[in-house]
């Protein structure tokens, strides 16, 4: 921050503001030119991305408190700041509620006469859907206040009581987290195809969110280290992040494949249609790409011990994981639009707009305050962590 000359920082934020402005024009134009369906699909995609990233980061923070991890104290501020992405995700999500009558068959009036959807009508109806979303937002804000707000306050108060509070709150937050991420998964993602259901879908989204949060954390750590910040964070810390990334690529594919294999075996029409759509035409290419980019490539890239410590390799894998997470969410949402994957200027405009916004938010969050939780009594122990 202070040791950096002002001009590159200013230049970067000008570029980001430009990207947001350009993206905003494209976003507005896409509503008119590409139609509301495609517009709302893009909007929901970016809402889900922001929400899962923030939630995944908040899960990392809560997990560290839950297991009383010491090694991660020096880098804990980064997932804490990433978790604040949940705040801008709230207005985005409230706007996304307008997508319900357009994209979600369960919220349309004709659902009442549909033999299957009629039974789910109350759950999928617009009012209850909105109430659930609001409850999820409220729970997220609660988690942010306790875990992130408390940690920021500890910077000045140096009060070790926060550690005890956070450790007591963490188990409760795990339950909250499970509820919120399942709601997001069931409502916003599998709600697009309400006749299809999968019990494990929430866990699948959790695996993706956690990986996304980890990848974003790793990237931010490497970025700040490149700027000469986060002094004292070393290969040993990076190794743990890399090992987490490595382990959870396997977890994600395990859950994803378990879901696919059972449906493939049973071959019930109402279940297997989900994959039938995604294995036809151009979607088949994207499905294979998803499996390769989300599992095969990162797995073999991180399999050796040295690669988990190598900043260059880690940065590449973290970029790859974030990209794969975007592809994963795209792969879940966009098939409802039609047999062909859409990718053109509307999608690019949305990416410009939201990516620019996210980066601006994170930049401003990381510019102020401390880089590490300096008030945490375990910070020194964390800095002395060796493998």
């Amino acid at each position, binding site marked *: 921050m202070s040791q950096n000359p002002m001009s590159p920082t200013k230049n970067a934020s000008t570029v980001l503001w430009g990207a947001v402005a350009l993206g905003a024009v494209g976003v507005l134009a896409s509503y008119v030119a590409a139609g509301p369906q495609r517009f709302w699909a893009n909007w929901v995609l970016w809402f889900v991305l922001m929400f899962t990233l923030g939630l995944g980061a908040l899960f990392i923070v809560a997990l560290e408190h839950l297991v009383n991890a010491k090694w991660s104290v020096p880098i804990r501020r980064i997932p804490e700041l990433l978790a604040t992405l949940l705040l801008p995700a709230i207005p985005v999500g409230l706007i996304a509620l307008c997508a319900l009558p357009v994209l979600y068959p369960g919220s349309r009036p004709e659902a009442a006469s549909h033999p299957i959807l009629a039974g789910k009508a109350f759950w999928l109806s617009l009012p209850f859907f909105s109430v659930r979303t609001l409850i999820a937002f409220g729970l997220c804000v609660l988690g942010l206040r306790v875990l992130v707000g408390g940690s920021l306050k500890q910077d000045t108060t140096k009060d070790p009581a926060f550690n005890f509070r956070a450790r007591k709150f963490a188990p409760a937050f795990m339950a909250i987290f499970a509820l919120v991420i399942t709601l997001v998964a069931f409502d916003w993602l599998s709600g697009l195809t309400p006749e299809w259901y999968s019990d494990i879908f929430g866990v699948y989204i959790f695996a993706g969110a956690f990986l996304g949060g980890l990848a974003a954390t790793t990237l931010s750590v490497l970025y700040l280290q490149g700027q000469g910040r986060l002094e004292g964070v070393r290969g040993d810390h990076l190794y743990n992040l890399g090992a987490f990334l490595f382990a959870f690529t396997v977890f994600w594919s395990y859950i994803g*494949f378990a879901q*696919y*294999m059972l449906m*493939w*075996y049973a*071959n019930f029409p109402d279940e297997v249609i989900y994959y039938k759509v995604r294995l036809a035409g151009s979607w088949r290419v994207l499905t294979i790409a998803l499996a390769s980019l989300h599992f095969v490539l990162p797995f073999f890239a991180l*399999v*050796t*011990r040295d690669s988990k410590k190598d900043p260059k390799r880690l940065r590449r894998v973290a970029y790859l994981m974030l990209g794969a997470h975007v592809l994963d969410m795209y792969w879940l949402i966009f098939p409802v639009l039609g047999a062909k994957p859409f990718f053109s200027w509307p999608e690019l405009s949305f990416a410009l707009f939201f990516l620019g916004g996210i980066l601006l938010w994170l930049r401003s969050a990381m510019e102020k305050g401390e880089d590490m939780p300096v008030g945490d009594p375990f910070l020194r122990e964390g800095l002395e962590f*060796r493998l």
Partner: protein
Amino acid sequence: MSETSYSVLGLFDTPNALMKAIPTVRAAKLGTVEAYTPYPIHGIDEALGLRRSPLGGMVLVMGILGAITAFGAQYWISAIDYPIVTGGKSPASWEAFIPIMFEVTVLFATFTAGLGMLFLLNKLPFFGHPVLSSKSITGITRDRYALAIEAESESFDSAAAAKALRDAGALEIEILPAPDRSPFLTSDFILRTAGGIFTACLVAGLVMFLTIKWFPLLAPMKHMQEQPRLNAQMPSTFFKDGHGMQLPVAGTVARGHLPAAAGTQEAAATLVNPLPRTKEVFAVGRKAYTNRCEVCHGAIGNGVGSLTAAYGGKPANLQAQLFLDYPDGKIYWAIVNGKNAMPAHAADLTETQRWAVVHYVRALQRAQNAKDEDLKVANP
């Protein structure tokens, strides 16, 4: 105390003293330098110059080998050696192979990790490391830090090693004998182990046998017998017609069979026999005719079969002029759909067998109306 000293142990007070001594002791190059400490000390691997363990690479290679083995075995079993279609899936469905591949990968990897570590890298078995029975061991497990120079060859000089350790600051010196590597896979050991395993198997098998014999109702797993299922020909309230067994949906075709010839016999007249007139085809036709047709139509197709008298029926005389003039397609149609009292044989005969029977019937007709040139061909 020992004639072949194996290693010399030097004890240090603090980890720092140990770490400081390591470079000088290593520089003396008297043997392999080992450290024994009550807890892990950071940086000691690098100081001792320990090579990265090759175990990780071994596990990776064996894991991949496990995946390939599992895939190959399943592919060969279910797609090549004994292909069975289950649930309408292709016998070579990779999806079904994945769980086993996962398990075998883990199996190969863990066995390689465990056994490779114990036998290849730690060079087990031997009964006890001399350090464990040394005088210093109580200190090493509590508050002493030991550095050992271990013999690499017969020319190990324990006095020089002791001096090197003392010069490096060791407070106490202990000389240890070589580990007892006497072979324990003696015939006696093998016999007793094998006998033990055999006896255990015998007892377990006997207990299992008697349990099942005396308590036959305690079947270990009866889920297959006791599942709620409908046997063939049983009534059921599940379906509207009250039958447990349902007719196949109209238009159902068995695997390997073509749809039955639809339409009238006249429409089928234009069908052409796709089979060539070869010995093999006639053999197939003869076998099918003998099994399915001969009881009524007779061995030479004259309509006098063994069942004719018993039923008082009047099967078609295939030697009659009407049938001599029949096109192949009309005979085929009769086989598939049946005619008058004759039942349909679509379910009994495959597509190939039906047309082979048509050829065979033609041969029977020709045999009863043989021309002179036929004899010439038959007796060349």
